[in-house]
């Protein structure tokens, strides 16, 4: 990956619907070059998928989300990978990370209600082998997601002209 690839990735991460012609102008390259580079980045898995940052609350969908911490006993030869692989298969699990510190795995789980999430944790996650402890934290409000601030700030007035 070179500097030009990095620029393309940043532009796509910011808005994946930017037309190819515009990407090419911004990154100072031909459209063919931009298309080739993006193809290569997709093939190499640097671009995992294209999506939108959705403020579900604003969209009128009262989805509930929770951060769940798990303490897990690692397996000989596999560490945390096999258990993590199993947990990741649940569609309710939006993200899953191995952490340093007081617990091991961190899940972001979303569901239609608090009740649903509690049931998912109690029935699907907690009983799994090697899960020693769970702690569920309900998300009360999201201020920033993937670099995007959700709260609207008042714009500061700028002068129309200055030298």
């Amino acid at each position, binding site marked *: 990956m070179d500097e030009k690839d990095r620029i393309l990735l940043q*532009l796509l991460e910011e808005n994946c619907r930017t037309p190819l012609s*515009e990407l090419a102008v911004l*990154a100072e390259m031909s459209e063919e070059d931009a298309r080739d580079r993006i193809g290569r980045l997709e093939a190499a898995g640097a671009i995992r998928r294209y999506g939108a940052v959705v403020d579900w609350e604003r969209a009128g969908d009262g989805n509930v989300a929770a951060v769940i911490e798990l303490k897990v006993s690692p397996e000989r030869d596999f560490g945390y990978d096999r258990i993590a692989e199993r947990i990741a298969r649940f569609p309710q699990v939006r993200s899953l990370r191995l952490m340093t510190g007081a617990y091991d795995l961190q899940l972001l789980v979303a569901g239609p209600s608090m009740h649903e999430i509690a049931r998912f944790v109690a029935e699907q996650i907690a009983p799994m082998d090697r899960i020693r402890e769970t702690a569920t934290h309900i998300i009360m409000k999201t201020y920033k997601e993937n670099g995007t601030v959700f709260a609207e700030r008042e714009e*500061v007035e*700028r*002068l*129309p*002209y*200055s030298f």
Partner: protein
Amino acid sequence: MRDFVSARARAIPPSGIRRFFDIAQTMEDVISLGVGEPDFVTPWCVCEASIYSIEQGSTAYTSNKGTPQLRGAISRYLDTRFNTRYDPEAEIIVTCGVSEAADIAIRAVTDPGDEVLVAEPCYVSYTPCVSLAGGTPVTVPCRAEDEFRLTADALAERITQKTKVLIANFPNNPTGGVMQEADWRAIADLLVDHDLLLISDEVYAELTYDGDHFSPATIPELRDRTITLNGFSKAFAMTGWRIGYLCAPPEIAAAALKIHQYVALCAPVMGQIAAYEALRIGEAEKDGMVREYRLRRNLFVDGLNKLGLACHVPRGAFYAFPSVESTGMSDTEFAEALLREQHVAVVPGSVLGSSGVGHVRCAYAVSRDDLKEALSRMGVFLDR
């Protein structure tokens, strides 16, 4: 009652843009490409440090020339970034923005009768500052065919027995022109031959997109005949903090300091603390802003040329300076009609010096979405 306004103050021409200001004030949806200031807010790490210092009670005067911490940081920054070495004790003065630095630099070296060369088009304050100091401003044109660089030929034509100083600003407001090492070497010979001083305003130095900024004070023969001006407004999005600085050989710095201490006492302490933090931890955010300006430049200059407004690629600052000659309108007519009809604000080049005639200054320090909207409105305007 007699007229108390001094002849010098009266002689300063009124701002060529006042009328545009008034028109823009009546509109709701103006896209302003008329502002020479970043649209970014100062990096939060910088604001946070300044807020904390206020909470700790840092609200007093500082040393006239600025806090030792900030001067030390500026000295190290200039050395690592631009290869210029200045002693923080004797050669650096922190000022209320580069505007004040330019004023005290000019006053420290200008006597009545001295001719001061000003490379044009340029920021509007140099010429009146020279006049207020009793000097005679003489403009030197930088032309589109030279990518708005200052050429030795143009300079040589204007040098007389009375010439003492050259003021130049590269990367340039309003053209985006830059000077490479070879360009400065040609100028350096003339400055030395005619025993002239250079005031180099480098406030846009960080906003150099193709290659590195070249600071003329790095040329050994120019080191002791150059006053380097720089500041935090553009690079770190800190216009409202009012922190600039002047670097000069000790005798000139001492003269400028006398003026500074009587007119400003010191630069605001909150701004100085913020500026120190900007140098300490603001580099990554600065680099991010510079990358964004470059993207905007690419987008906007490409759009202008597609509209038929010929525009050289500005290699620095955040201004595009297209020619509007193809429209058959003067730059003032173009700017006024564009504002009235399409609510897009640009600055007519003639306001920024006679060599800016036929061009308009468009600051691309606005979001890419706004730039696209401005281009589309300009397209409608040109098709009418």
